């Protein structure tokens, strides 16, 4: 039986969905589960962490950990991993995860794999599956060490409903701050907008929206649905949409239940960011646009005409 340690994904004091997804998979593999939660004022999350499917909660709760710092975060994870005697240490897909995982692996002399989409455990043999070469191929990787540190691709695992765990909080020692890398300032990403990574529905705008008027129009639809609002690279490059809204190979990779591409042609770089979505709806004036090659439902039309109709039709259905 394996011991799988999941790093809790906490943002602004809120526990994100990826934690439950990772824990569900761990339970599916028949493993003992634990989470490590790092931050400030996160004591209250213990029960939630347990409910998400963890049997032990390693807590590193201190004001010094309020802002992300790779060194201390890695140290906490390593402490928890050692205490838990973890075979696998999983991070959700985030900058934090991508930054801390390799450090943890280096400290534990463990194998490290990022963006994994599946894990199998055959006795002691761990294998993972992950995309490579800009998603053109899939690798099946055999791990040759006892321990694997992994970063899990967004939406790779599904949360099992009705999962339970045990409340069993363990306090971790608080590591010293790393004064060699200090965050001086954070220029935060807008506006209380819904996090693209978490949203169940994501709606993105492309060149077809043309200008602010078009953007506002599509934003209206996003607001109606409580959806995350994203963008193609073109709109970010032209300055109309913020950088952190970019969905694509070099931006955010999302995998919501429903992805709506409005006025987006479907360049490969964009597709790389959203083909993991469950259902894709595309609206584009050009019937030959490559987006239609991946869309489950495609509407050939002018988004300025279609969006208001969508809003109406959806209202009718959802009430």
């Amino acid at each position: 039986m394996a011991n799988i340690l999941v790093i809790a994904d906490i943002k602004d004091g809120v526990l994100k969905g990826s934690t439950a997804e990772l824990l569900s998979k761990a339970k599916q593999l028949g493993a003992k589960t634990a989470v490590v939660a790092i931050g400030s004022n996160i004591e209250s999350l213990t029960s939630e962490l347990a409910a998400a499917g963890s049997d032990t909660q390693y807590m590193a709760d201190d004001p010094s950990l309020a802002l992300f710092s790779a060194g201390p975060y890695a140290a906490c994870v390593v402490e928890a991993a050692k205490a838990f005697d973890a075979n696998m240490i999983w991070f959700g897909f985030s900058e934090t995860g991508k930054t801390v995982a390799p450090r943890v692996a280096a400290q534990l002399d463990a194998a490290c794999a990022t963006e994994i989409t599946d894990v199998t455990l055959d006795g002691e043999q761990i294998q993972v599956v992950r995309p490579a070469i800009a998603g053109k191929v899939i690798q099946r990787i055999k791990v040759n060490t006892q321990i694997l540190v992994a970063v899990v691709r967004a939406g790779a695992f599904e949360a099992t409903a009705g999962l339970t765990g045990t409340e069993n909080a363990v306090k971790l020692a608080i590591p010293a701050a790393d004064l060699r890398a200090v965050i001086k300032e954070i220029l935060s990403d807008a506006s209380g907008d819904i996090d693209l990574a978490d949203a169940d529905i994501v709606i993105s705008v492309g060149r077809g929206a043309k200008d602010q008027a078009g953007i506002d129009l599509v934003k209206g639809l996003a607001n109606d649905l409580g959806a995350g609002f994203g963008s193609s690279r073109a709109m970010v490059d032209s300055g109309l949409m913020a950088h952190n809204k970019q969905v694509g190979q070099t931006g955010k990779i999302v995998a919501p239940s429903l992805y709506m591409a409005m006025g987006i042609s479907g360049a490969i770089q964009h597709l790389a960011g959203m083909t993991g979505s469950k259902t894709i709806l595309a609206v584009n004036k050009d019937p030959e646009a490559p987006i239609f090659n991946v869309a489950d439902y495609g509407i050939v039309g002018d988004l300025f005409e279609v969006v208001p109709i969508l809003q109406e039709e959806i209202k009718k259905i959802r009430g």
Partner: protein
Amino acid sequence: MKILTTVKKVVDVELNIHIENGAIIEDGLQYVINAWDENAVEAAVQLKENNGAETTLVSIGGDDNIDMIRKCYAMGIENGILIDDPSLTAPDSAVFAKVLQKVYEKGDYDLILTGKQAQDTDSGQTGIMLAEYLDVPCVSNVIAIEVIDETKISVSRLGDTGTEIVELTLPAVVTVSDSINEPRLPAMRGIMMAKKKKIQTMDLAELGTTPDEVGAAKSEIAEFMKSETRQAGQKFEGDAAEITAQVVALLASEAKVF
């Protein structure tokens, strides 16, 4: 300031990758500099031009890395090291990081610049592991670098909550995002002069280490598989009101989204 940049040769991701019997068919593939490392090289050259830094690059591979190194010379890198050793056949990120650690220790560098990930593996681990081995701070996904003085730099990084401005004490490792700059095209004049420049080639022994010390890869690629491409679904053309209503109905009934 002395800068060490790492460059990796990767397969050109614009090409179709064909797989047979679990392996990639090499025929017809061409290899190019890792795009993110190209950003790192550009960042290094800019620091040379603006702050008088001294630049060195290191690459791990064989003779076919030489063209790539010369291109980097043409961009403005002053020194180049090629680590060529028969034992390095299927290195993973940790192995690369260990070799780079040895390269670092042989020199006297203040800043290590590397791309945040490689286009063939998309792993993003090497730079960070290197920092861990060297016990120096590291910031990844950096979009801007500013030199404060001989011992400190300030970098902007795309984090989860926003853009973080981080003050780093040197020596440090910085992995760069493609948003940091637009790599210049190697200058014609530079290409001419690069032809004559020397590249320092070393194997592990000359580097002062052994295959055992570097260690074996901690994981191996068992198999390559074709990635499932999404197929086109249903496309609707015609009266906007009609087809939109149709699609919404399908989203509810078929896709069960609403």
